[in-house]
C-alpha cells in the first residue's frame, strides 16, 4: 500500500460521508460545557481552586506528551483529551489539596490508567475517576479536608468543615445541613468542581444539545438516585444536588470509552451507577460513592456490552 500515492488511490470502507465531528471537537465541547463550573469553583473556593485545576491540566498534558515521547509514539496532546482529564481530575479534588498530590493524581490518570493501556480509546476505566480514588485511598486526610466556601472573594481560606454528605454520614448534627438552594448554587463544602449543581446542569444541557452525549446515562443515573432516596425516606432533592452526582452523571459516566455502546446498555449503566452511589452513601463507610460507583460500572461495561450485543441469526457462540 505504502508505495502508491496515497492521495489518488484511497479505497475505504463505509461510512463515506464525513462531517467535522472528531475527537478534538468533542473534547472541546465538553471543555466548553465545563466552563461554568470552572468559573463557579473560583467564586466559591477562591483562586486556589482555579490554580489547582490548571495544575492538573498542565501535569496531564506534560505526562501525556512525555510518556508518548519516551515510548516513541506520536503525541496526541492536540486532541485535548489530556486537558479534559486534567480538568475533571481537578474538579474532583478539595481546593486545599497540596499541588504535588494533584500531580501524582495526574500521573495515575494519564500514565497508569490511560497510556499503559494503549492511550486514548483503550483504557477500560475512567482516568480521572480512578486517579481520584487512588488519591483518596493514598492521602485520606488531605483528600477529605474540605475548605468551606469563602463567599468573600480572595480571603485567606483556612476554615474547613464537613461536606453535606459528610454531615449526613456522621448523623450527629443534621441541623447543619445546608439548604437545597445553597446546594443548587454550590455554596457548600466539597470537591472544587462538583458543588455547583446549576453550573453543571448548564454544561450537561449544552452537551445534550450539541449531541455530544445521549441523555440516557445522566437521566438513568440521577433518576435512580432520586427514586432510591425517595424509597429510603431521604430527601431526594438533597441527594441529587449533593456530592458528585451532577458532575459524575453528566461528565464522567458518559465517557464514550468506558460506558456501554448501546442505549439499552447505557440505561443499565446509569441505573447501576445510581444504585451503587446510594448504597455506598447510605450504608458504606465512605460518605460519597459516586466515584466508586462509576469505576465499578466501568468494570461491568464489557459484560453489559457482551450481554446486549446483537446476535446474528444462526451465528455461533463466541
Amino acid at each position: 500500500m505504502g508505495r502508491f500515492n496515497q492521495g489518488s488511490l484511497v479505497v475505504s470502507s463505509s461510512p463515506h460521508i464525513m462531517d467535522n465531528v472528531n475527537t478534538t471537537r468533542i473534547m472541546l465541547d465538553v471543555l466548553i460545557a465545563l466552563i461554568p463550573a470552572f468559573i463557579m469553583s473560583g467564586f466559591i473556593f477562591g483562586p486556589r481552586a482555579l490554580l489547582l485545576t490548571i495544575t492538573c491540566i498542565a501535569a496531564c498534558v506534560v505526562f501525556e506528551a512525555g510518556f508518548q515521547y519516551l515510548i516513541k509514539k506520536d503525541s496526541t496532546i492536540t486532541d485535548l483529551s489530556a486537558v479534559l482529564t486534567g480538568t475533571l481530575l481537578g474538579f474532583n479534588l478539595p481546593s486545599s489539596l497540596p499541588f504535588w498530590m494533584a500531580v501524582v493524581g495526574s500521573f495515575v490518570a494519564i500514565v497508569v490508567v490511560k497510556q499503559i493501556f494503549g492511550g486514548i480509546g483503550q483504557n477500560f476505566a475512567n482516568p480521572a475517576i480512578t486517579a481520584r480514588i487512588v488519591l483518596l485511598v493514598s492521602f485520606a486526610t488531605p483528600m477529605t479536608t474540605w475548605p468551606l466556601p469563602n463567599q468573600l472573594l480572595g480571603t485567606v481560606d483556612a476554615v474547613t468543615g464537613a461536606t453535606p454528605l459528610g454531615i449526613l454520614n456522621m448523623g450527629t448534627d443534621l441541623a447543619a445541613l445546608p439548604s437545597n438552594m445553597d446546594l443548587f448554587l454550590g455554596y457548600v463544602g466539597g470537591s472544587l468542581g462538583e458543588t455547583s449543581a446549576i453550573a453543571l446542569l448548564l454544561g450537561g444541557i449544552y452537551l445534550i444539545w450539541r449531541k455530544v452525549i445521549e441523555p440516557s446515562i445522566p437521566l438513568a443515573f440521577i433518576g435512580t438516585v432520586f427514586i432510591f432516596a425517595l424509597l429510603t425516606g431521604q430527601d431526594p432533592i438533597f441527594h441529587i444536588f449533593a456530592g458528585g452526582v451532577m458532575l459524575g452523571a453528566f461528565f464522567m459516566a458518559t465517557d464514550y470509552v468506558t460506558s456501554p455502546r448501546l442505549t439499552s446498555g447505557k440505561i443499565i449503566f446509569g441505573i447501576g451507577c445510581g444504585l451503587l452511589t446510594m448504597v455506598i452513601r447510605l450504608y458504606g463507610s465512605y460518605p460519597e460513592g459516586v466515584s466508586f460507583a462509576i469505576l465499578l460500572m466501568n468494570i461491568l461495561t464489557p459484560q453489559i456490552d457482551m450481554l446486549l450485543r446483537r446476535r446474528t441469526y444462526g451465528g455461533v457462540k463466541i
Partner: protein
Amino acid sequence: MQDMLIILFSAILVNNFVLVKFLGICPFLGVSKKLDSAVGMSFAVIFVMVLATAVTYPIHMGLLVPLQIGYLQTIIFILVIAALVQLVEIALKKYVPALHQSLGVYLPLITTNCAVLGVTILNIDESYTYIQSLVNSFGAGVGFLLAMVLFSGIRQRIENNNFPAAFKGIPSVLIAASIVSLAFMGFSGVIDGLFGL
C-alpha cells in the same frame, strides 16, 4: 439467620478473597482470559472451598484441639486439601472431560491454592461455628466467581490493546487487576451498614 447473610455478603463483596484479601491471585490471572473457563474454574473453587471446610473443620475441632497439636494445622490442612483436589480432578476427567481440558494445568493448582487453604484457616481464626464456616467458604467462592467474571470481561476488552512493549501481557493485566481491586474498596462498611450494625 442475619449473621449468616452478613458473613455471606461480606465474603463476596467487602472481604472479597481475590480483590481485597489478595488470595488466589494465580488462578485469577491464569484462567480469567475467557469467560467460560473463568466460570468453570470458579465453580471448581467454590466446590473445593466448601468441601475443604466441611472436612478440615471437624478435623481441627475433633482432632487437633483435643490432642493439642494445633501447630500441625497448616500441614494437615494442606494434605487434606491436596487429596480432595485430586478427587475433584478424577471426577471431572471422568464426567466433564471438556471442562477438564479447558482448565488444563490450573486444576492441580487449586491443590496449593492459598485461597482454599486460607479460607479453611481463616474460618478457625474467626472462631466461626461449623455452619458459619461453610457459609463463609461458599461466600468466598462466590466472591472468587464474581472477581473472575468481572475480570474476564476486562481481559477480553483489553486483549487487542496497543500496549507499550514493556507492559504487554502480565504487567498490564496486573495493573488492570489493581484498578478492579481499588473499585472494591468502595464496598467497605456497606454490609455492616445495610444490616444496621
